[in-house]
């Protein structure tokens, strides 16, 4: 026998159930959590005298985080599966304008508007997914193209239907309470986000299909050979992303009573920054939902709550830039830790 030395036998205990600090550290979410904790503590110190910890202080960034978060998690799914979606910046205004035009201008029931907006999202996602899976064009370029195409179409159709690029819409009371209400300062979207986080955690980490998403980003050819419906799954993920974005748009228009057809380019950066700060590997195959949640919260604190601290508001972009760089460097370290780790063998 050539290599008996490397065949150390150790007692078979395939499942480690015990809680350990090292297993926490190896989770891709831990880096994101530590980043969040550092930012939160620093902001609490600098913002103590300026209401950072007050109800309006906290709700400001949590409310913002909920809208970005509903979009960022599916964007993260796509990144885990090795794709990028930047068309979100156009899907959001398309969705808000759909609700405003259908329900505000044409006086249709709110449900019709919601279904129409979600359908617009699903359709854009299908187009993205179909083109990405049936051509060799990278998803960055495909969604860049749909970003501009949808943004242009939204402006054109807004002028065509209501002769205005902005619109106002007051939702009926029950819809307002369910989708755009306020509870102790928190918007309804926060609760929707919390619910969706549970569903997304279950989907990615517990349902059997979650593995498939990782497999797409790990090795697409092997995934196909293992019998995973690669094309369907990928189109599904693009549709999920655009539909979630459209849903965020619905929540936004019902909460703030206004819609705009201007493309939201900031959203694209915010979602991608959140996902990367949340520990998702840019090359795919690695990441967690909870990591993305912490990524979104961190980004929201830095961009939205800086006014409640003594830190100069103008520094927020600088902080985000530095944070993103640190996150990418740390992600690499965490991934190495995770792969090299093996359970200490009992001798």
């Amino acid at each position, binding site marked *: 026998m050539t290599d008996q030395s490397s065949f150390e036998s150790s007692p078979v205990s395939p499942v480690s159930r015990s809680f350990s600090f090292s297993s926490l550290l190896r989770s891709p979410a831990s880096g994101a959590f530590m980043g969040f904790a550092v930012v939160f503590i620093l902001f609490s110190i600098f913002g103590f005298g300026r209401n950072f910890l007050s109800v309006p202080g906290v709700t400001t960034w949590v409310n913002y985080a909920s809208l970005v978060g509903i979009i960022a998690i599916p964007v993260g799914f796509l990144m885990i599966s090795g794709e990028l979606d930047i068309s979100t910046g156009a899907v959001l205004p398309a969705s808000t304008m759909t609700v405003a035009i259908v329900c505000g201008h044409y006086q249709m029931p709110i449900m019709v508007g919601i279904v129409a907006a979600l359908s617009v999202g699903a359709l854009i996602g299908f187009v993205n997914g179909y083109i990405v899976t049936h051509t060799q064009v990278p998803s960055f370029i495909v969604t860049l193209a749909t970003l501009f195409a949808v943004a242009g179409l939204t402006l054109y159709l807004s002028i065509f239907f209501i002769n205005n690029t902005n619109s106002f819409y007051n939702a009926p009371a029950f819809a307002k309470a369910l989708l755009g209400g306020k509870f102790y300062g928190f918007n309804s979207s926060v609760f929707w986000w919390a619910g969706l986080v549970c569903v997304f955690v279950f989907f990615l980490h517990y349902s059997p299909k979650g593995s498939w998403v990782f497999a797409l980003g790990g090795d697409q050819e092997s995934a196909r050979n293992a019998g995973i419906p690669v094309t369907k799954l990928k189109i599904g993920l693009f549709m999920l992303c655009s539909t979630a974005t459209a849903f965020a748009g619905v929540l936004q228009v019902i909460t703030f009573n206004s819609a705009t057809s201007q493309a939201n380019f900031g959203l694209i950066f915010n979602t991608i920054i959140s996902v990367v700060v949340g520990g998702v590997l840019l090359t795919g195959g690695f990441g967690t939902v909870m990591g993305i949640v912490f990524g979104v919260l961190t980004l929201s604190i830095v961009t939205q709550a800086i006014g409640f601290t003594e830190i100069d508001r103008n520094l927020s972009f600088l902080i985000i830039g530095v944070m993103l760089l640190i996150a990418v460097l740390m992600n690499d370290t965490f*991934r190495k830790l995770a792969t090299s780790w093996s359970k200490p063998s009992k001798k």
Partner: protein
Amino acid sequence: MSAKQPILELRNVDKSFGPIDVLHEISIKVRAGEVLCLLGDNGAGKSTLIKTLAGVHQPTRGEFLMDGQPVTFGNPKEAQERGIATVHQFGGTYPLMSVGRNFFMGSEPTKGFGPFKYFDRAKANRIAVEEVQKMGITRITDGDRLVGGLSGGERQSLAIARAVYFGARVLILDEPTAALGVKQAAHVLRIVNEAKKRGLAVIFITHQVMHAMAVGDHFAVLIRGAIAADFRKGEKTREEIADLMAGGESMAELEANIEVYQQTHDGHVPQMSA
């Protein structure tokens, strides 16, 4: 006599991509508990042949038989359902996923019902570790470990154990030893023998003659898309096989010419002019 009947057989199979013929008149057969080694240099058509066997490509002409019955596979999934499993050079594993999840990729064990079905991690990890250990890899003891931390040989072994567990009858190994060191390769060859002992038909694709001779019962040399030689264990020496792979008869002829030259020129080899 079912034992004599080949599990998988190709009869005069051609494969063309448009006007380009890649495989001509390929006839191979492999029986249960037998290792067929497909030898060939780069560009000999090995990958196309594997893809044809695995259901990725369909033969342009010729017959594809399993257990004596003609079959056609529309996609790799159909071939897998009939028990043809392919393991690729890098094991087809996902480095950043656990051993248990890799093992059950595409056929996850679940608990719960309806939309609340969830991945049964404990069961997956237990079975994965047991199966890998049965194949002789005792170093893998934790199903939660990420595959990226395993050696190349262990990853191959995991993939083979997976194929065996999911009821493969024909195991196609695509250059499993090409990227491995000497020890790791020996490791994989032992697993090939283990699979053979369990009655699997193995098609072992390689360009390393030594590895082929260590496990093969039957050899076929592929040159420019055609079977150039077909022989059983012990019928040819290692040098003869290497010659065949390098260009078939022409190589032997060249050597004979050199020998003649040496005899007539006091043992000097021919000088290259210019």
